C-alpha cells in the first residue's frame, strides 16, 4: 500500500522537470562530445554513451530511494554523514589527482568523487540535527554545532584542493536563515563580499573614504541613526579595518590561480589566453549562438573543443551556441521553476526535518546553478562546479539525484507522518 501511496503522492511536476533537465543535459553532452558525422548513441567508449549508463543508474537509484522506507534516511543520516567524512579523508590519503584536485577515488574502471555525495550527506545530517527536539537555532550551541556539521566536510574538500565544491557549503547559510538565524548575518556577509570586491577594484583608500562618506550621510540624513551613533561608528571602523585586511588576505590566503580568476572576472586583468581563456571562449561560444542558435550539433566552437571542459563545467556553452537565446532562457526558466517548486514543496512540509532538508536541497541546486551559469557568462569567477543534471559525470548526477529524490520521498510521505 505504501508504495502506491508514494507514487500517488509524489510531486510529479518536480520529477518531470528533473527528467527534462537530465534529457536536455544528455542532448548537450551528445552534441558536444560527438565529433563524427555518424555516431552510435550507444557507443559506451564515448561520453554521450557513458552518460546514458550514468542516467540509467541514476534512475535506478531514484526508484530505490522511493521504495526504501522514508524513515531510513532520517535514521541513518549520521551514519551516512560520518561514512562520507571517512571517505573524504580516505580520498586525501589514497585519492587520485584530476585537474589539480585530489578528489577522486579510483575503483578500477570507475572513479567516484565523494565530494559530490558529501553534499546530500551534510544536508541529511544538518536536517537530522536541527529537527531533533532539543535544538534551538537561537541558542549559541545549536549555531555552533550546525556550523561544525557544515564546515567539517567543507574543510576536507578544501584540503582536496577542490575550492569550488567547498564553496557550495556556503549555500547552507540559506538553510540556517530559513530556520531562524538572524538576517543580519546574511546582510553582513553580502556587505563584506561587496567591500572585498570594491577594494580589489578601487583600492583601500577610496573604499574607506566611501564607507566614511556613507556613514556620515546616514548620520546626517536619518534621525534614527543619530541615536545609534556607537554602532554606526563601530560598523564604519570595522569596515575600514576589513578593507585594509583585504589586500593582506588576498595576497596571502588565495592561491595565484584563484587570484587570477577573480581578477579576470572583475576585469582588472585581461588575459584571454591564460586564466581568462575559458571564460572568453565560453562567452564567444554562447554569444555566437544569437537568438535561435546554430542548431543541434552545429555548434562549431563547442564541437571542435574550443571551449575547455565543454561536457562538464562549461556544458552550458553548448546550449548557448546551438540553441541560442531561446535555448538558454528556456533552461534558465526551467531551473528557476524547478527551484521555486522545491521551495514550495519545502514550505508545505509538516515536519521540521523535511523542511530543513528541502531548503538545503534547493540551496545546493541554486548555488550550483548560479555559480556555474554565472561563470560561463562571465558573471562569477571560474570555480569548477557542475551544472546539476547537465554536466557529464556519474558522481555528480547520482549525488544530485539522491539529494532530490530523498526530498521527493519525504514530500510524498508528508501525509503519512500525521
Amino acid at each position, binding site marked *: 500500500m505504501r508504495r502506491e501511496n508514494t507514487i500517488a503522492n509524489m510531486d510529479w511536476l518536480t520529477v518531470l522537470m528533473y527528467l527534462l533537465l537530465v534529457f536536455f543535459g544528455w542532448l548537450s553532452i551528445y552534441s558536444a562530445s560527438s565529433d563524427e558525422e555518424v555516431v552510435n548513441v550507444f557507443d559506451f567508449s564515448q561520453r554521450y554513451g557513458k552518460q546514458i549508463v550514468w542516467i540509467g543508474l541514476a534512475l535506478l537509484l531514484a526508484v530505490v530511494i522511493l521504495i526504501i522506507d522514508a524513515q531510513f534516511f532520517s535514521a541513518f543520516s549520521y551514519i551516512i554523514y560520518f561514512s562520507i567524512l571517512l571517505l573524504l579523508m580516505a580520498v586525501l590519503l589514497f585519492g587520485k589527482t584530476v585537474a589539480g584536485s585530489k578528489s577522486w577515488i579510483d575503483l578500477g574502471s570507475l572513479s567516484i568523487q565523494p565530494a559530490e555525495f558529501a553534499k546530500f550527506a551534510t544536508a541529511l545530517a544538518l536536517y537530522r540535527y536541527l529537527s531533533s527536539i532539543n535544538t534551538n537555532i537561537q541558542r549559541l550551541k545549536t549555531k555552533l554545532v550546525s556550523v561544525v556539521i557544515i564546515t567539517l566536510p567543507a574543510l576536507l574538500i578544501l584540503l582536496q584542493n577542490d575550492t569550488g565544491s567547498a564553496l557550495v557549503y556556503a549555500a547552507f547559510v540559506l538553510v540556517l536563515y530559513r530556520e531562524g538565524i538572524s538576517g543580519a548575518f546574511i546582510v553582513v556577509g553580502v556587505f563584506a563580499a561587496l567591500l572585498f570586491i570594491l577594494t580589489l577594484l578601487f583600492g583601500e583608500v577610496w573604499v574607506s573614504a566611501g564607507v566614511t562618506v556613507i556613514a556620515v550621510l546616514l548620520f546626517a540624513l536619518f534621525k534614527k541613526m543619530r541615536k545609534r551613533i556607537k554602532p554606526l561608528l563601530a560598523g564604519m571602523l570595522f569596515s575600514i579595518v576589513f578593507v585594509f585586511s583585504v589586500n593582506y588576505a588576498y595576497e596571502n590566503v588565495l592561491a595565484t590561480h584563484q587570484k587570477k580568476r577573480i581578477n579576470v572576472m572583475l576585469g582588472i586583468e585581461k588575459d584571454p589566453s591564460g586564466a581568462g581563456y575559458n571564460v572568453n571562449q565560453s562567452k564567444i561560444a554562447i554569444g555566437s549562438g544569437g537568438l535561435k542558435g546554430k542548431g543541434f550539433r552545429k555548434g562549431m566552437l563547442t564541437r571542435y573543443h574550443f571551449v575547455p571542459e565543454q561536457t562538464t563545467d562549461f556544458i552550458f556553452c553548448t546550449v548557448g551556441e546551438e540553441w541560442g537565446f531561446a535555448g538558454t532562457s528556456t533552461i534558465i526558466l526551467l531551473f528557476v521553476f524547478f527551484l521555486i517548486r522545491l521551495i514550495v514543496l519545502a514550505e508545505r512540509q509538516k515536519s521540521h526535518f523535511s523542511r530543513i532538508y528541502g531548503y538545503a536541497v534547493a540551496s545546493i541546486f541554486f548555488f550550483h546553478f548560479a555559480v556555474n551559469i554565472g561563470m560561463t557568462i562571465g*558573471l562569477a569567477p571560474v570555480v569548477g562546479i557542475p551544472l546539476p543534471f547537465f554536466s557529464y559525470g556519474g558522481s555528480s548526477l547520482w549525488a544530485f539525484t539522491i539529494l532530490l529524490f530523498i526530498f521527493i520521498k519525504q514530500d510524498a510521505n508528508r501525509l503519512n507522518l500525521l
Partner: protein
Amino acid sequence: MGIFILIGLVFMIRLYFLQVTDNRYQHTAENIVLRYVTQYPARGRIKDRHGELLVFNNAAYDLMVIPRQVKAHDTALLCRMLGIDREEYEKQLQKAMHYSYYKPSVFARQISKSDGGLIGEELYRFPGFYLQTRTLREYPRPIAAHLLGSIGEVGKKEIEKDPYYRTGDYIGKSGIEKYYENDLHGKKGMKVLAVDVHNREKGSYQDGRYDTLAVPGKDIFISLDADLQSYGEQLMQNKKGSIVAIEPGTGEILAMVTSPGYDPNMLVGRKRSENYRALRDDTLKPLLNRAISGTYPPGSTFKMINALIALQEKAIRPQTKFNCMGPLSAPIKCTHNHKSPLNLEEAITQSCNPYFWNTFKSTLNKPGDVKQGFENWHRDVVSLGFGTKFNTDIPYEVSGNIPSRAYFDKLYRGSWNALTVRSLSIGQGEILVTPIQLANLVAVIANKGFYYPPHLLRKIEGKEGFPEKFTRKQVSTIEAKHFDIVQKSMLDVFEGQHGTARWYKMDSITQCGKTGTVQNPHGEDHSLFIAFAPLENPQIAITVIVENAGFGSTWAAPIASLMIEKYLTGEVKRKGIEQRMLESDLIHGEKEKTDNN
C-alpha cells in the same frame, strides 16, 4: 524565492545582451573556428618575342607559425634545418607574436622545394608550425634582370593602396613584374576550412560553398629577343654602359642591356635581401638601368638632329657648304682632319664641328629673332622624343634635359644669342639624353619622321586589346624628305671611304650609323654609336654607349654592328671583332691599375 527569480532574471538579461544584441561574438567565433586558407594563384609567366620562357614559377614553401600552438620543441634542429641562428629564431617568433597570437604568420619564407620536403617530414616535432605552398620566380637564362624585375613582399603602403594585398603577399617590385602586376598576379582564391582547437583541419566548411578558386595570372609576351639580349649582355660585360635596340616599325624593344648588371636569380628567395643590399652598395651601381635612367650628353649624334632641324626650318639646304679651318676654327674647333669646305652629307660623315655650329646659328637666326629661332629648334627637338619620358612600360624612366628658352633667359638675364648656347650645336652643354631616347631617334630617322613609343609589351595572354599609348603614331615636325640625306650620310659612316665605322661594314647588310665621342666632366670620353639596318627596310635601330671608353668608333660602333649582325642573320661571322669585344675589360683593368698603385 525572490533571489532565484532575481538571479534568473540577471542571467537572462546578460544572455540577451551576449547573444542577441552584441554580434561581436559571432564574428569572433567565425574567426576562431574557420581557417581561411588563401589559395595562391600561379603568377603569370614572361616569355620573349619568340615564346621563349624568360620567367616561370617554381614551387617553394613558407614556414608558417601560430604562436599560440607552439610548444617546447627541438629549437636547435629547427634552426639547423632553416639555416638560421638562435637569435634569428627568437626574432621571428617575437615578430609573429607581435602580429597575432592566434593567427598564422610567416616564420621563414621562400624555402626551396627540397628543403621544404625535409622540413615537412620533421614537422610533427614542431607543433604550431606548418608549411604553406608558395611560388618562387625562376629565370632559365640569367638575362634582362632590370627589365623583368623582381617580386618581393608587399609593403605597408602597397597594402594601404590596394586592399587586394595582405601581409606576406608578393608583388612586382620592379620591371615588367611591377608594370604588369595586375595581369601577372591573377586572383587569389580562398578555401574555408573548419578547424578544431588543436588547429586540426576538420574538412571543408559547408562543403566548400564559400570557397573561391584561385585564378592564375596571365602570361606576358614581351618584345625582347632573348638571344639578342643575351648576346648584348655578353658584349657589354666588363664595360660600363648600355645598349638599346628597337624595332623601328613598331617601337618594340628588342634588347635593352645595362652593364654592369646582375643575374635575376640573385633577387629570388631567401638570399634576396642580402644580395639586394650588396648590389645596392656596389659603387658600379648594377641596380641602375642605365638604358632608361642614365643621362648623357648626346655628342656628335646630335649633329644629325641639328641637320634635320636646319633643313626643316629652311636654314640650310643639303648643298649648303661651310668652311672648316680645323683646329683653328672658331668658336668651336674641329679635330677631324678633312677637306674644306664641305656639304651636309660630308659634314655628317666627318662629324665636322664648325659645320654644325654654322648650321645651328643659321637655324636660330632664321626667323630674325634668335629666341623665336630657339623656340622652333626646341619644339623640333622635343618632337623627336627628347626632353620627355615615353611613359614606357619599364619603370624608372627619366626625361633627360633639353634646355628651354626660359632657362636661358633666366641664366643670362635675357641677354643671349646663338653664340652663348653654341655647345648645343654639337650635342654638348645642357643637353642630356637617355640611351632609349637616342635609340628612338634612330627609329625616327629609319622611319623618316615618326616613331611609336618604345615599349616591351607584345601580348598579354587571354587579354583583348593593346595599350593605345603604344600604338599611337608620334609624328615629328621634320618632313620625311629631309631624312634621305641624313640616312645617306649615315650609310657613308659604314660604307664611305672616310666613314668612322668603315671597319665594321658588312657586305650582306646595309648599315647606317653615327659615332659620338662624348666629352664628360667625370673622366674619359664616352664611346657612343647609333645605327639602324638594313637601309632599305629598317628592322633594328640601336644605340650603344660605353662609358669612359674613348672614341665611338673603337667600342660602341663594333658592338652595335655585331648586335645588328646577330639580330638580322642569327649568328655572328666576324669572330675577330666579336672576340675583341668579349674579352676587353674596361672596368677591372682600371681598378687593378689603381689597386696596384
